[in-house]
Every structure is written in structure tokens, then in C-alpha cells.
């Protein structure tokens, strides 16, 4: 088409270059530099960086706090996505198929719209704000959680949630799950609504119970969404910086119990000025994230179920 040729490259340059320039300066170049910096002893002050090879990475393996960070991020990587997805799926299924209308066994529950509205809200709050809120909830004396436990006579269960090394990380993970479940519930719910009714009715007519319908039909049809959710949540769990930094005092909570890689990196760089060392943590986190994404996408690959 002759008309389309006219000025094509001028338009393309105008469309792509501004975005590309911004992206190259602030995203690509820092990412590329990070790999080199991780191999230096740069402390920023002298402005001089000496090449030290893999020294930083070797030191990471002896860094007790970094090793607890690895362990904590690993646990979060398992617990946060699994808990969020299971809860999200369950709540979505209850809202979409938990009710019954006349003889239709799989119907939306009454008030389903209200639940979706209410559950979704925490997702809109930024994580540091959620963290400030939960800092109050977990407060040992005046906090909502202990106040509730004492009010119902369960004084024995009251704890210094964020001060107890055995509980702090779980308290932090609960906050991440709390803030994310609503989003994934609405996401799964939207996907469930797009499942044709006759597929579900056929399953019910064939005698499938609700649980079997959920497990055998609904979840497989949602598998793409579950997979995406798992990757997103995994990345969230590998971060964990904002909640930990705001909620737990000192470096990585009591006894390093809530130390995460991001926090160690932030502290090394911007508190101690060990930029090379911090960059090495960043590179480690990058490879962990990459490995996680590849494994998650491969391991959960199933035959795609197509409707049409």
C-alpha cells in the first residue's frame, strides 16, 4: 500500500525513540551496570571501583543475615502464592457457584457482588500503608489482634506478633496474603463467569458434585490464570521489602527472623555504602527470580484447555 509507506520511518522513530531513550537510561543501563558493579568493591565515596571478581558472592555465602534472608524469601515463595491462590479460588468458587436457584445447582451466591467489592479494596492500598496499618493490628498491648483475643478470653494466644522470632515472618506473610487475596478472587471470579453455563450444567447432570466440578472442570479451565497468579505472587514474595521494612524493627526483625534479600540490599547500599556488595545481592535476587519464573511456568505447564 503506497499510502502507508509515506513517512513510515519518520513516524516510527517519533513513536519509539522517546520511550526507548527513557527506558534505556533508567532501566536498561542500570540493569546492565548492576552485573559489573557486583564484581567490584565500590563504596561510592572514593568514586573508584576495583574489580574483585566473585569475591562479593563468596562473602554472601558467609553472611549469616543474607542466608536467613534466602531462607525467609524461600519460605515466602512457597507460602504466599499457595495460600493466596487457594483462598482466592475458594472464595471465587463460593461466590460464583456457592448458591442455588431453584433446580440449578451452580448459581451465584446472594450478595456475591458485595463480597467482591469488599475483598478487593486492600489491593488498592499501597503496601507500606498496609504495613503501617498491620503494625497497629499486631501491636502487643494496644493492637487489634491481641485486644480481640483478650476480649474473647483467649489471653494465652496473645503474642508480641512481630517481636517473636518464631512468629514474625508468619505475621508478615499473613499481611501479604491479606492484601492480595481479593484481587485474585476477583480475577478468578471473572474467569469463572466466562465459563459457559452448559459445560457446568452438563457436569452436574452427569452427577459431578460441587467439589469435583471445581477441581475437574473449573480449575483446569482457569489454569492459565492460576499460572499467571503464581508468577506474580512469587515475585511479590521474593520482594517483601516494604512490609518487612515498615513492620519489623531493626535489621530484619527479631534475630533476623524477617530479613529479606531486598532489605539486606537496601541496608548494605544506602546505610553502609557497600554498593558493590549490594549489587551482588541484586544479581543474586535476579537469578533467583528468573529461576523461579522459569520453573513455575514449566512445572505448571499443562495441556491447554480450549473452549469453543
Amino acid at each position, binding site marked *: 500500500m503506497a499510502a502507508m509507506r509515506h513517512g513510515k520511518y519518520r513516524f516510527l522513530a517519533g*513513536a519509539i525513540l522517546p520511550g526507548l531513550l527513557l527506558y534505556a537510561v533508567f532501566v536498561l543501563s542500570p540493569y546492565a551496570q548492576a552485573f559489573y558493579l557486583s564484581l567490584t568493591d565500590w563504596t561510592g565515596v572514593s568514586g573508584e571501583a576495583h574489580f574483585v571478581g566473585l569475591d562479593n558472592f563468596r562473602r554472601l555465602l558467609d553472611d549469616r543475615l543474607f542466608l536467613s534472608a534466602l531462607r525467609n524469601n524461600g519460605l515466602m515463595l512457597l507460602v504466599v502464592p499457595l495460600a493466596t491462590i487457594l483462598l482466592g479460588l475458594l472464595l471465587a468458587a463460593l461466590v460464583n457457584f456457592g*448458591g442455588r436457584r431453584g433446580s440449578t445447582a451452580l448459581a451465584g451466591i446472594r450478595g456475591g457482588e458485595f463480597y467482591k467489592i469488599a475483598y478487593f479494596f486492600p489491593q488498592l492500598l*499501597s503496601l507500606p500503608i498496609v504495613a503501617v496499618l498491620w503494625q*497497629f493490628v499486631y501491636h502487643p498491648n494496644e493492637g487489634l489482634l491481641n485486644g480481640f483475643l483478650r476480649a474473647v478470653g483467649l489471653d494465652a494466644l496473645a503474642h508480641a506478633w512481630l517481636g517473636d522470632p518464631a512468629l514474625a515472618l508468619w505475621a508478615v506473610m499473613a499481611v501479604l496474603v491479606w492484601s492480595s487475596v481479593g484481587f485474585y478472587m476477583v480475577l478468578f471470579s*471473572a474467569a469463572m463467569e466466562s465459563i459457559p453455563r452448559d459445560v457446568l450444567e452438563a457436569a452436574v447432570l452427569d452427577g459431578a458434585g460441587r467439589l469435583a466440578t471445581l477441581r475437574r472442570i473449573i480449575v483446569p479451565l482457569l489454569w492459565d490464570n492460576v499460572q499467571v497468579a503464581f508468577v506474580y505472587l512469587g*515475585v511479590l514474595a521474593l520482594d517483601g521489602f516494604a512490609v518487612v521494612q515498615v513492620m519489623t524493627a531493626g535489621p530484619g526483625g527479631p534475630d533476623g527472623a524477617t530479613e529479606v534479600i531486598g532489605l539486606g540490599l*537496601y541496608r548494605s547500599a544506602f546505610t553502609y555504602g557497600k554498593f558493590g556488595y549490594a549489587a551482588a545481592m541484586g544479581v543474586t535476587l535476579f537469578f533467583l527470580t528468573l529461576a523461579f519464573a522459569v520453573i513455575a511456568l514449566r512445572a505448571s505447564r499443562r495441556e491447554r484447555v480450549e473452549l469453543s
Partner: protein
Amino acid sequence: MTAVVDRPARPVTPVDQPKPASRTGRAGDVAAHLFLVGWAVLVTVPLLWAVVSSLKTDREILTSPWTLPAQPQFDNWSRAWTEASIGSYFVNSAIVVGTALVLTMLLGSLVAYALARYTFPGNRLLYYLFVAGILFPVFLALVPLFFVVEQLGLLGTYPGLILVYTAYALPFTVFFLHSFFRTLPTAIAEAAFIDGCSHAGVFFRVMLPLARPGLVSIGIFNFLGLWNQYLLPLVLNPDPDRYVLAQGLAALSVSQGYRSDWSGLFAGLTIAMLPVLAAYVLFQRQIRSGLTAGAVR
């Protein structure tokens, strides 16, 4: 088709179905509702508690956590807004996020459109270059980014934050809009070309309006993502006068001096949550469908 043969042996007509199922169904309904109500309580109670506490005196917060305030203490809010600088943090957030959002949408849709609808050498490479940014954790770039921004003299400035926010929002925006622009019909664009429309004209006058649903989805997604930024401002925005809302509130709650002022902190927290809540109440349908449409496709 064996349905006719099967039917006498296993009667599963709709008429038969409800009888055995209805009792367990009723119990199931109750359990379903209990579970749903339980999670609703878990979500709303901490939020309501914060709002109610923001209207109490410090004494009331300590002594009677479960009652409503005897006298709503609105001066907690004004104290938080002015003395604790929540007001100026708020304005900073609005400026930075608003500008970055416009810039992200403009640059992102241009790049996505060019890559989705034109063939030229290097197209694939550029696409993957942009989309690769989704995979990389921000932490990887953090240390070098700090020095890039510092060397450009943009540390602790609005333009610095705006440009960095935009750059980091581009990968997902390009990825999302790329697939969106690909699905748009070519016939209308071709007709416009034949009518003598320029490339830019086709983009702004034909394709952008067609892409509106996608733009709204990714716009909402980006707004929340940018509003929720914490790590980037924490590192690149050290000047307390320019703190954005989340950053400022977190700093307040961490700083020892403000710890004793519970009611003031609750007020700051409530002020930080209210606009989002208000927007959500007004636009909740669009926000939810927009955000989830982004992920469902």
C-alpha cells in the same frame, strides 16, 4: 450417543436432582456464607478500626479500644495534615503520579502501537527488550539507578521521580497494549490511510479511540502501580519536603518521636486511605473490571 440407553439406569433429570441434594445444599449454603462473611470481617475490621481510632483521643485508644469515640476528635486529622505533613506528601504524590501516568500512557501506547502494527528490521528485538523489563526485579537496578539519577542531577526532584516512574511502568504497558493493538481490525486503519490520513493521524484519530477499553484497563493498572511505589521514592527521593504519601507515612510510623501520637498516626493513615476508598466507591466496577481485564486478557 448412549444417553437414551443410560437414562432408565441412572435417572439424573433436573426434576430428580434437587431432592437428595437440597439438604446438603442448604448446609453448604450456610457454610459458604459463613466463610465469605468471615473473610469480609477480616478485611474490613482492621480498616474500620483504624478509621474509628483516628477520631479518638490517645487515652480512649488505650483504655477503650472497642467503643466509638465519645467526641469525634477531628483535630487529630488537622494535626496529621499540617504538623505531620500528610498534606504536603499528598500533594507530592498527586503531582508525581499524575504526570508520570500521562507520560506512561502516551509513550507506552506509541511504542506498543509501532511495534504491534508495523514491520521493520529490529521489531522483535525491540519488543523483547521492552518486555524483558517485566521479569527483572527492581532491586537489581537499584544501586546503579541511584547513581544514574544522581549524575543527571535529578535526585530528590519531581522530574527525576516522574521519569523513573514512567520508565519502570513502560514494560508492562507496552506488553499489554501490544497485544491489544494487534487485535484491532486493520480495515478501519487502511480506510483511513486511503482517505489520506498520516501515520500519526491514524494512530491518534483511529487506533487510540478504538483501543480505549485497553487504555482504561492499563491506565488504572498503572495508576495503582505508580501510586503504590515505595522503593523507588525511598531511594531516589531523600528530601523530606518531597516525600510521597506512602513514603512519608512509613517514615512517620518508624520515627520514634511520633510513636506516642497514636491518634495522629491513625489520622494520617486514614487520610492516606480515604481518597483511594472514595475513588473505589465511585468507580469500583470500572476499577475491578479494568484491573482484572488486564490479567485475564
